[in-house]
């Protein structure tokens, strides 16, 4: 399967099944398209056949010189021989084998506080309460959660724990005590905890910062962008905006971490479809690790993204991608989470096909110790899988999540982005289709666009390197 597109003046050919990215001129772009139209399953042999060349000549002979057709066809054959073009999807049986392996739990999302000091309008946690009651996790429940993680992690050494909420700083002492407990236990069991804190920053102070910098592998800082955008969606309960209080604290924290191992993370909604300005606002505030994600809302929510918004959203991603290339060239680059792409050292195909791990490798723990497939399922009783005292009491729920992959979703089978999103978010699928084996179509459209932009950025920066090396010569 081949996906071709043009973006920012680059002709890009993605060989979907190998992940190979080719930047080509217009001639090669047209020739590869013509070849694929003639036969989606070309092999080096069929490409070498007289019929293939005759067909190419018939279709493009009046547009391009015969010599170019031959040269480019030869290059295409070489790449196909090397497994970088016209590759087949050989992973379906493989993923069954991977999925049948015994999985271990390697990450927990600890709902340390089902309470929040902000009242964000779009909050899926309903101001921290998750369709339930306000509650703080006790140290005892948290300890049992860490014990459960260690006991179910097999030989997996690196274990991840996210202190999440609501707002975890509203239960800060328990966070600190659990980190101390985790550090004790990891020595005993030869494990290594990687802690993350997700916070809205309201209660962030020097003491928290010092602790976070010492103990947390990652910090996710919630802020939506420009003051008016942030304050409209992220007010305090009394309606007052949160931007002025929080921004200086986040700037200080990001600097104190040398602009590493954190994300400033925002949500864009229908009310700020010009969200590239919010990303740039973050960059102007000095943040270098940036994530802004589309809101997921009910169709009836006024702020929810609609299909009709997609053209504008695509335009925004294009603007952002181009701006990022320019800034990178000017030495003022920053990371945008959804455009991160490692063409050489990205995840293995097993990881790419098996999804986010929710319900199997990744579980969420409520303040009272109940286990759910992930933070987004918390409060939906049909997904209650067990608790920290008894462990997994409904293994059939884990089995259903284990059986979910891009091959269990009809819409993923012909999607070029399936090795980048792994079939999308199962919680979103459930929200819109009442099954985890479907996809949230608006989100898919955005993901495809982001993958295209991310690859374009790679093409543009590689082009830059080539220009520089030419200049040196």
């Amino acid at each position, binding site marked *: 399967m081949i996906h071709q597109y043009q973006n920012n003046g680059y002709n890009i050919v993605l060989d979907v099944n*190998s992940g190979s990215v080719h930047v*080509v001129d217009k001639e090669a772009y047209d020739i590869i398209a013509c070849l694929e139209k003639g036969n989606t399953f070309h092999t080096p042999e069929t490409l070498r056949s007289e019929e293939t060349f005759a067909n190419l000549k018939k279709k493009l002979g009046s547009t391009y010189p015969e010599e170019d057709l031959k040269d480019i066809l030869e290059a295409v054959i070489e*790449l196909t021989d090397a497994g970088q073009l016209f590759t087949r999807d050989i992973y379906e049986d493989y993923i069954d084998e991977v999925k049948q392996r015994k999985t271990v739990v390697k990450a927990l999302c600890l709902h340390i506080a089902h309470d929040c000091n902000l009242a964000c309008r779009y909050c899926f946690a309903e101001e921290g309460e998750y369709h339930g009651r306000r509650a703080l996790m006790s140290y005892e429940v948290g300890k049992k959660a860490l014990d459960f993680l260690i006991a179910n992690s097999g030989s997996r050494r690196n274990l991840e724990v996210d202190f999440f909420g609501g707002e975890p700083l509203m239960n800060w002492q328990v966070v600190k005590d659990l980190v101390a407990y985790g550090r004790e236990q990891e020595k005993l069991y030869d494990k290594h905890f990687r802690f993350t804190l997700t916070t809205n920053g309201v209660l962030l102070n020097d003491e928290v910062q010092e602790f976070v910098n010492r103990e947390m592998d990652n910090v996710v800082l919630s802020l939506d962008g420009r003051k008016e955008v942030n304050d409209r969606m992220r007010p305090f309960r009394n309606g007052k905006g949160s931007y002025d209080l929080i921004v200086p604290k986040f700037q200080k924290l990001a600097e104190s971490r040398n602009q590493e191992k954190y994300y400033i993370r925002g949500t864009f909604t229908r009310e700020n479809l010009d969200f590239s300005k919010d990303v740039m606002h973050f960059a102007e505030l000095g943040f270098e690790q940036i*994530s802004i994600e589309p*809101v997921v809302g009910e169709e009836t929510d006024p702020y929810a993204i609609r299909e009709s918004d997609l053209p504008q959203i695509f335009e925004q991603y294009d603007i952002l991608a181009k701006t990022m290339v320019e800034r990178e060239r000017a030495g003022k680059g920053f990371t945008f989470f959804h455009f991160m792409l490692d063409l050489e050292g990205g*995840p293995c195909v*097993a990881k790419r096909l098996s999804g986010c791990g929710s319900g199997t490798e990744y579980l969420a723990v409520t303040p009272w110790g109940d286990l759910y497939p992930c933070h987004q399922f918390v409060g939906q009783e049909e997904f209650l899988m067990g608790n920290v005292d008894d462990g997994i009491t409904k293994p059939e729920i884990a089995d259903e999540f284990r059986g979910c992959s891009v091959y269990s979703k009809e819409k993923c089978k012909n999607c070029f982005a399936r090795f980048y999103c792994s079939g999308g978010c199962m919680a*979103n699928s459930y929200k819109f289709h009442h099954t985890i084996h479907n996809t949230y179509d608006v989100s898919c459209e955005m993901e495809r666009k982001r993958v295209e932009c991310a690859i374009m950025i*790679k093409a543009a920066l590689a082009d830059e390197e080539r220009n520089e090396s030419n200049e040196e010569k």
Partner: protein
Amino acid sequence: MKHIKTLNTQTLNNTVKKGGCGECQTSCQSACKTSCTVGNQTCEHKK
């Protein structure tokens, strides 16, 4: 190959044999809590 420039040398099929160790980060632990983005994660072996 003046008409075609390939950006990567590694291919996904090369990761079949050694892949699947599971030591890598869980995707939702990084920055996405409402979507699913796996392709941008890092392989623990290549750090």
